[in-house]
């Protein structure tokens, strides 16, 4: 019986450690452009058969805890004005499309650059996609303008339009690191506006992550002390039983 209690505590402790990892990753990325925080979801995992079966009544199911999924918190981050003409923030749920070696990827990090051959690229050098492929600038072009619908123009006249995509369910997306998301079914963006000269900061809230961290450490400690008490209980039970036999 006590063994069951210890296994349940253990399942909670493992889940809490993982939650701490998620909190730490959010906190580490508090200054990452376009970063979206993650939340860990838990579910009850019902074990129909207890390991120790000598309950006085019929068998009781046991409830373990299991970390089940991480949810992307897709709320907008703070928009910060930088004045840089190649900084673009997205107001809304949409993403930029970039071309990587592994295929199209989605990102919210709109601090772009122009590569040495004039292509608009993200911070890793992946070309940013327009409706008709990568966006190219000539060496003499100045005054790059990006309108709120994503259309790009320069001193050489109108260019392509940035390919902005939205997703019916952003939870389908997987994270790849390097500020990139993969997967999902991209739809043409309708509710997203581009803002030139701004970047979107990370949407991590320092306050709520700190509160979460305190909650996690405290519940971990209380579970640990519970485990300790169960152990003491078991030890004293064994001692009593030993005394009775002597």
């Amino acid at each position, binding site marked *: 019986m006590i063994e069951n209690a210890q296994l349940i505590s253990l399942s909670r*402790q493992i889940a809490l*450690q*993982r939650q*701490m*990892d*998620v*909190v*730490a*990753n959010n*906190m*580490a*990325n*508090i*200054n*990452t*452009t376009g*970063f979206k925080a*993650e939340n*860990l*979801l838990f579910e009850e995992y019902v074990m129909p058969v207890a390991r120790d079966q000598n309950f006085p009544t019929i068998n009781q199911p046991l409830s373990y805890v299991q970390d*089940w*999924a*991480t*949810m*992307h918190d897709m709320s907008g981050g703070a928009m910060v004005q*930088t*004045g*840089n003409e190649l900084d673009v923030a997205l107001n809304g749920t949409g993403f930029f499309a970039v071309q990587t070696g592994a295929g199209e990827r989605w990102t919210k990090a709109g*601090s772009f*650059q*122009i*590569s*040495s051959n*004039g292509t608009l690229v993200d*911070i*890793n050098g992946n070309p940013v996609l327009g409706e008709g492929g990568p966006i190219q*600038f000539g*060496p*003499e072009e*100045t005054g790059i303008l990006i309108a709120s619908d994503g259309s790009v123009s320069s001193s050489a006249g109108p260019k392509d339009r940035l390919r902005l995509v939205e997703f019916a369910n952003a*939870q*389908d*997306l*997987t*994270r*790849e*690191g*390097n500020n990139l998301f993969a*997967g999902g079914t991209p739809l043409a963006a309708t509710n997203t506006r581009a803002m030139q000269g701004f970047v979107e900061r990370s949407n991590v809230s*320092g306050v709520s*992550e*700190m509160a979460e*961290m*305190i909650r996690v*450490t405290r519940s*971990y*400690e209380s579970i*640990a*002390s519970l485990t*300790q008490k169960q152990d003491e209980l078991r030890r004293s039970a064994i001692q009593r039983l030993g005394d009775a036999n002597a």
Partner: protein
Amino acid sequence: MKALYIASTGMSAQERNVEVISNNIANMRTTGYKRQRAEFEDLLYQQVTRAGAQTSDQGTMVPAGLEIGSGVRTVSTPRVMSQGSVNITERELDVAIRGEGFFMITLPDGRTAYTRDGSFERDAEGTLVNSSGYPVEPNITIPGTATSVSISPDGLVQAYLNNETIPTQLGQLQLARFVNKSGLESMGDNLFLETAASGPAQVEIPNQDGTGNLLQNYLEMANVNSVTEIADLIAAQRAYEMNARIISGADSMMQATSQLR
């Protein structure tokens, strides 16, 4: 327990951020200085459960995956090449560039460096040099008899020699443009060097093909805004502290584990 390592990547990223901000603040009064900005990225994710994995024979799927990130890294510190404000200095050899382009300076080893710092001087031979004494490219020599040197917005350098009434043309200043000016390498001394990322320099006459025009008697100030730098500094410092708190939180969890007997 990954949290310790994850939080340590966060602390080192914020440390880097503070370094970049302090260099910006230190160069707040440097002529032609362009501020830098630290850019961060999240690291790889461990996919504990993949979204879309099948959960039963009926084809039900995991609606959202379980992904644990592994921290943050600094990707780059690109320069923000926006125009700095121009201040009047009333020195006839001070030139500010209004718009795109860089002055070209010949280094002692023969290479060409690029700069936005137009505080030029004359050396003993009358050659136009930058404040380190390196000649401006193309070479312009101002004779000792010259009075009132004038530099036109198009870079034409003229002076009145021997009290003549018609100015003599001394030379033509040129500007270099780059496709990707954020890709220039900083060599210190207000100078930049061409790299494979910046693309080759395109030398133009000022005011043509997208290059800016010149303003004599003015200098371009640094484009550092002290208020935003201080705000960024405070944010970086607090983020550093919060990452440190995560480390002590993770430590107290490990302590709780290690005290179990």
